[in-house]
């Protein structure tokens, strides 16, 4: 049996390795490994809880802001802080901006080259390309001349002999199905999206001062509103936010979604590949009546088991029996055994690297093989991400989601079961972006209305001073990162962090097997995936990229036997 190793998996965040066994042109077994670790939780211990957002935000620079949001919520939950409505709206606006940027970048820059053959675009007829482009969208950059110029630029690039980021791609692989003209549209929008994405993030810059890694604040948002002051959020700053949201919605509806719908019909076979786990988890997000009122979230919270869309289970982050982490195949050890699960409030993190000595050819997959722990919900492996969010919303009876999903499935002539697949995952990401673009504008209008009505509050200072805190407190902050369900758990003792645990989307999806041998989402989804040429693992990339991997934050801390023999040698 051939063992394929793909390491590094590129066009992702972080360091991910896939080992897969192929028999008769199909994957029969797969192993997913996170190969880098930094040690966040140990570093957080003993720090000021109000600083935790800045530390945890650095878990990931691709889905920047999401950890900051989960962190301030965890601290606010522990200290019983309610933030003002405007601060909630600002957080929601930053959330929406992040989704739009992240999903578009994922589609074009991290995922598209799995479907779009750049070299084939050189053969496209610019007139035909223009005709197709104008038939799917009103986007103005669609003239024959525009595509001819782009093709010329691309030809010059290829002829230069320096292929740069396109070097050694899988061009000409039989799994590429798009006609040259659609490939050329893909390349054009790859470049346009690259230029566009730097605009929408300015919403973060206005409210949080910079992007990546804007600033957050426990108790609210750091930006003050004063419509009569140049040094605060005033009409000019708000107008810029409004314009950015409008432009983003236009790009999403006129470029991203039409492209998604134009490409999908050529790859409908991928609606039957890559389904993987039958269980879906979403924590929900985008509060419209405060973080405590979960029923009013735009994205609902819940869990689906065995693809049964008639029942949505309740999810509770503080229930010790629900979310637990296992380490039987991860390079850690627990004080009470290798096979037990631990709720994050009592999570332990003790390093135990038992992998092969580098350089190595293969990991020892029968033993421990990853720096990721393995989270389970009531013992079940769960998929998290856009597909889970859409399914939980669909099954919860959310009309806006049901209408959108049904209309797109109708257009493609596909049944609901088509969603449980690689293509379904990629489509769900696009669908929720349509919703997010609308919701962003709703939040914006609401913020303006509040200010007009005289409410400019952005910060609740009641519990800012540590003197006001209890000697012990525990909190959990739940959120939905673009890649899926994200939660931070904090234990505060004597005004400092006593324990801090992150269980992030890619830990759910990319983790190794649990003690029962159950696979997590990546491994499970690869089973049955065809591999035409084991030297060119294009199909593996398609399915893995459909999850939008983000590994740096998925890796946990270890704490080497409780004590550190080495000193800090760096400084």
């Amino acid at each position, binding site marked *: 049996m051939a063992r394929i*190793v793909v390491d*590094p998996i*590129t*066009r992702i*965040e972080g*360091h991910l390795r896939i080992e897969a066994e192929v028999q008769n042109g199909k994957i029969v077994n797969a192993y997913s490994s996170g*190969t*880098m*670790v*930094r040690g966040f939780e*140990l*570093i957080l211990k003993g720090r*000021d809880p109000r*600083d935790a957002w*800045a530390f945890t935000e*650095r878990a*990931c*620079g691709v889905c920047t802001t999401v950890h900051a949001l989960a962190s301030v919520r965890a601290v606010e939950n522990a200290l019983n802080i309610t933030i003002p409505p405007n601060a909630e709206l600002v957080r929601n606006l930053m959330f929406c901006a992040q989704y739009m940027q992240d999903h578009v970048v994922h589609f074009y*820059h991290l995922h598209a080259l799995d479907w779009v053959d750049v070299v084939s675009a050189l053969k496209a007829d610019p007139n035909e390309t223009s005709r197709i482009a104008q038939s799917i969208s009103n986007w103005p950059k669609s003239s024959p001349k525009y595509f001819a110029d782009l093709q*010329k*630029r691309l030809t010059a690039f290829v*002829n*230069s*002999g*320096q292929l*740069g*980021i396109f*070097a*050694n791609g899988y061009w000409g692989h039989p799994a590429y199905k798009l006609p040259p003209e659609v490939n050329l549209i893909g390349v054009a929008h790859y470049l346009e999206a*690259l230029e566009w994405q*730097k605009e929408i*993030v300015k919403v973060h*810059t206005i409210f*949080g*001062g910079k*992007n*990546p890694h804007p*600033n957050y604040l426990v108790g609210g948002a750091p930006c*003050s509103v004063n419509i009569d*002051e140049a*040094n*605060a959020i005033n009409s000019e700053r708000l107008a810029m936010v409004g314009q950015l949201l409008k432009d983003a919605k236009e790009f999403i509806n006129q470029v991203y979604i039409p492209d998604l719908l134009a490409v999908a019909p050529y790859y409908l076979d991928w609606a039957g590949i890559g389904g993987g786990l039958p269980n879906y988890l979403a924590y929900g997000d985008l509060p419209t009546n405060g973080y405590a009122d979960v029923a009013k979230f735009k994205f609902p919270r819940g869990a689906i088991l065995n693809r049964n869309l008639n029942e949505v289970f309740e999810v509770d982050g503080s229930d010790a029996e629900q979310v637990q982490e296992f380490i039987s195949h991860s390079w850690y050890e627990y004080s009470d055994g290798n096979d037990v699960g631990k709720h994050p409030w009592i999570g332990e993190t003790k*390093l135990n*690297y038992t992998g092969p*000595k580098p*350089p190595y050819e293969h990991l020892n997959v029968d033993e421990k093989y990853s720096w990721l722990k393995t989270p389970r919900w009531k013992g079940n492996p769960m998929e998290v991400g856009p597909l889970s969010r859409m399914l939980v919303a669909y099954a919860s009876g959310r009309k806006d989601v049901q209408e959108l999903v049904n209309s797109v499935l109708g257009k493609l002539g596909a049944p609901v079961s088509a969603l449980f697949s690689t293509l379904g995952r990629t489509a769900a990401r696009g669908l929720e972006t349509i919703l997010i673009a609308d919701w962003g504008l709703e939040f914006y209008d609401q913020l303006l209305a509040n200010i007009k009505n005289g409410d*400019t*509050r952005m910060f609740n*200072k009641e519990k*800012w001073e540590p003197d006001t805190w209890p000697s012990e407190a525990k909190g959990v902050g739940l959120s939905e990162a673009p890649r899926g369900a994200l939660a931070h758990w904090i234990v505060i003792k004597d005004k400092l962090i006593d324990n801090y645990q992150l269980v992030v989307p890619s830990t759910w999806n990319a983790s190794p097997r649990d003690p029962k041998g159950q696979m997590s989402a990546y491994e499970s989804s690869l089973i049955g995936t065809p591999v035409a040429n084991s030297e*060119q*693992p294009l199909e593996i*990339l398609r399915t893995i990229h459909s999850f939008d991997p983000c590994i*740096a934050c998925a890796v946990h801390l270890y*704490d*080497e036997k409780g004590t*550190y023999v*080495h000193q800090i*040698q*760096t400084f």
Partner: protein
Amino acid sequence: MEQKPLTIYENMKMQGYNRRDFLKFASWMAAFIGVEASGLGKIVRAMETKPRLPVVWFHFQECTCCSESFIRSSHPIVSDIVLDKISLDYTETLQAAAGHQAEAALHATMEKYKGEYLMLVEGSVPTEEDGIYCCIGGRTSLDILKEAAAGAKAIVAWGSCASNGCIQAANPNPTGATPIHKLISGTPIINVPGCPPIAEVMAGTIVHLLAFDRIPQLDGLGRPKAFYSRRVHDTCYRRPNYDAGLFVESFDDENAKRGYCLYKMGCRGPVTYNACGVTRWNNGVSFPIQSGHGCIGCSEANFWDNGPFYQHLASFPGFGIETTADDIGVVLGVATAAGIAAHAVSTNIRKKKLISEEIEKNRIARIEKEEGGL
């Protein structure tokens, strides 16, 4: 058949640009980097004769915020850099190929352009336990770094991870996270700190290398002077509030709504060298202080361990706006819970005297140092 790489000028010609367009582009680039008109000829010649610079970009212990920041660049825009100015032959974030094919692209460049390629590093390198905390393709990052650095023309250490160690090097630095300059010698290293660095600062560093074919002037910590010679405090538009003793006392209070100085809220602007106050972020839209939060000092070494972010600095050295990090040495911006009296807030009049004293003191110290060195 081995194809000869095209020069930047040839490239532009093939794309349908004429000589005039090319010269316009060169002069625009010159203006961007602030070159005098007399320096333009050099840029034009450089672009006429050089193939696109082969570049390899490594990711070690990092969060990819540097790559994300880089693609936010507005001048030049990143697709122009990647398609027209450099040849980005290895980057885990963007490249089409994965696994063996990606490694093959990397090694092809390292062999073909030995001694000529530019190496960009994002992330620190863990050194504990023989480096097992970061492996790529079954090899440790330490191993990969050393191999690639040996053939590089120069290294740019992107961000605080690669130049200072950043968060994973914060106490207790569990993995032995180490910045690049502590591991590599013999290859020039440019440190571009920040978490992340400003997009246009990253692009500007690349443009500088391309246009002038030389390393920009660096300060004592290896940072380009063009972007890291001024403290955020000295270039902050809220500075007059500091000088006048007007401070935010609590987030979102009346003073915050007027945009007063954030010093008492823990702002690290006085001990942070970066271009945030000048270049600002995301094409000049804002920067942390303008958006109401103090600077957390993300471009300074050890910034995670310099006290809680919301405790204000007890004192900071160097009043003069003319002083650079080299003049006053490495700044220790340690926060304290002590009252603000520890650092008397000065008026402009008092300040002027202090500034002149400080400059004089630094000038003398520098002369003494130089003489001592002879």
